[in-house]
């Protein structure tokens, strides 16, 4: 379906373990249009991360179709998938996933290493984004010299460095306190509103989900709710 950033059709995923075959995604149909901000919620083990990994082209579905911008991902080869991850999708993880031995600046410019940017270009792009994240003075810091919130902002800067049109965030505030979580969510909201980047985010907290414009609820590998997010007052109350 052209015009839609994400479109999945009957997406199935099952794992084969010693205990036998366990289905995790049982036919997910989801369409996300350009500029949407979607929150996914659901109980633990309901398949949210599995779904996000497939959306991020980090994993493949057992059957079904996944279209990114109208392009069927299942027919792409490894290099085309790498290109997609590099240019089109920015992934933000719960555990930040920064390279521990690289400075904040080098971590942010990592995707540029694989898109053929020159070293000076890499430095200026990374510095720009760190400043946008309010981390201008931290560019030479190593990840373990920064707080969790700061590390997550570095990770967001890295996700943004190649100007993707889709940000996937799997529990980006899962390791952060409430105040820091709100800072991160403010950043994501701003990216969605002023840069019209499409965002899909997984969370367990209703107040985090209330930042989104649409809520999708997973239970046991199936979508059981697709509609309005929780009202904002949940957040004000917190």
């Amino acid at each position, binding site marked *: 379906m052209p015009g839609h950033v994400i479109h999945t059709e009957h997406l199935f995923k099952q794992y084969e373990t010693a205990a036998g075959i366990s289905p995790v995604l049982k036919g997910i149909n989801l369409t996300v249009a350009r500029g949407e901000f979607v929150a996914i919620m659901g109980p633990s083990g309901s398949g949210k991360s599995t779904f996000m*990994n497939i959306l*991020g*082209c*980090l*994993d493949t579905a057992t059957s079904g179709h996944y279209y990114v911008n109208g392009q069927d991902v299942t027919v792409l080869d*490894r*290099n085309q998938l*790498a*290109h997609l*991850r*590099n*240019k089109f999708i920015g*992934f933000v*993880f719960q555990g930040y*996933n*920064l*390279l521990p*031995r*690289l400075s904040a600046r080098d971590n942010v410019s*990592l*995707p540029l*290493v*694989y*898109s*053929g*940017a*020159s*070293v000076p270009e*890499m430095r200026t792009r990374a510095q720009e984004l760190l400043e946008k994240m309010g981390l201008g003075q931290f560019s030479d810091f190593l990840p373990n010299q920064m707080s969790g919130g700061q590390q997550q902002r570095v990770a967001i800067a*890295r996700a943004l460095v*190649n100007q993707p049109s889709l940000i996937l965030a799997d529990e980006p505030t899962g390791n952060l306190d409430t105040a820091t979580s709100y800072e991160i969510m403010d950043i994501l909201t701003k990216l969605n509103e002023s840069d019209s980047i499409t965002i899909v985010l997984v969370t367990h907290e209703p107040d985090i989900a209330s930042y989104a414009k649409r809520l999708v609820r997973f239970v046991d590998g199936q979508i059981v709710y697709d509609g309005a997010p929780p009202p904002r007052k949940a957040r004000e109350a917190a």
Partner: protein
Amino acid sequence: MMFFSMQRQAWHAMSANRLRTFLTMLGMMIGVGAVVLMLAIGQGAQYMVEQSISSMGSNLFMILSGGTTSGGVRTSTGAAPTLTAEDAQAMTDLPSIAAVAPMASGSAQIIYGANNWATQVYGTTPSFLIVRDWNVSSGYPFTDSDVRSATRVALLGQTVVANLFNDEDPVGKTIRIRNSPYLVVGVLDIKGQSLDGRDQDDTILVPVTTAQRKLFGSQFRGSVRMIMAQATSAQAMNKAERDLNDLLRQRHHLSENTESDFTVRNLTALAEATAQTTRIMSMMLGAIASISLLVGGIGIMNIMLVSVTERTREIGIRIAVGARALDILLQFLLEAVIISIVGCLVGAILGVGGAWLVNKLMDTPVVITAWSIVMSFLVAAAIGIFFGFYPARKAANLKPIDALRYQ
């Protein structure tokens, strides 16, 4: 991915684990150092042998008094010399023989002024210089007429000159050999060491007749210790050997079933055998050293495998932000190649330094050729690629989600 940033990534990874990187390099250093050193020693030995062979003269036979048993041991040497200067003269008429020199030798004390020196004195003819391919560097060689009239003239080797004459020109001076005066008519060129390690320049040549009658009179009485003969060409060597045997058996009146009272030795074949032995030794040294290079290479593979396992998450993160399989492959290959090339560089320097030490401390000749350095460089790069490839490919083929989940 651009090369410059790749180097940076590789550098980051290697400097993160300095001790391990160094130890891996050490394996390569020792390997390459050993190869360079062993090749230098082996080629030094080869060079020396080749030098002595070319100083010996070509297509040479040495004919000695006394027969040979089946075991190759010479019998009844010295007791009754059977070869004569006339035997030598007769050999010159053989069509397969180009030049012949009889040799009557003994050691003698030499005196010049206040200096004295003990050396080997050879009585021979002017054709000795042809047979041995030896030139006179100053003065003139003695002549056939000197041989006929047994004059007391001498040609000096460079070692003798160095020990008897300080800065003087020896030509025209008179030295005393076994207390009799001899006129120095010329000085021989430098020859260097013989195959058995003797200093060939520590020698004096006099006419064979002078040696027989005046110098070692009681010992020789018309006989000579040995005869050197040169065949006309390398192809004529076999025929020359038969001709020499036939001629001497006939001249010595030996019947069909008596053993020869002389031995004809093909010096050129002996020299070839020595050269062959040296070449084999040189190759063995290189081969043994190569094993340590191989061990160094396996060390690289081992470390790279550990490194890939350890950095699985890092690889996962890189793949997640858009690294292609080729980027990951090149990153790890580059690391392996850098380790092996830096190790090789230091190893080559160590090898050259070691060769220099061996040369200085043990007085052994060493030859370091450009190709042995270039070779070890290429081998190091090849080892880096070969042993780095498997771990690198393992890293490149990781599935992103598996790599990211790896704990």
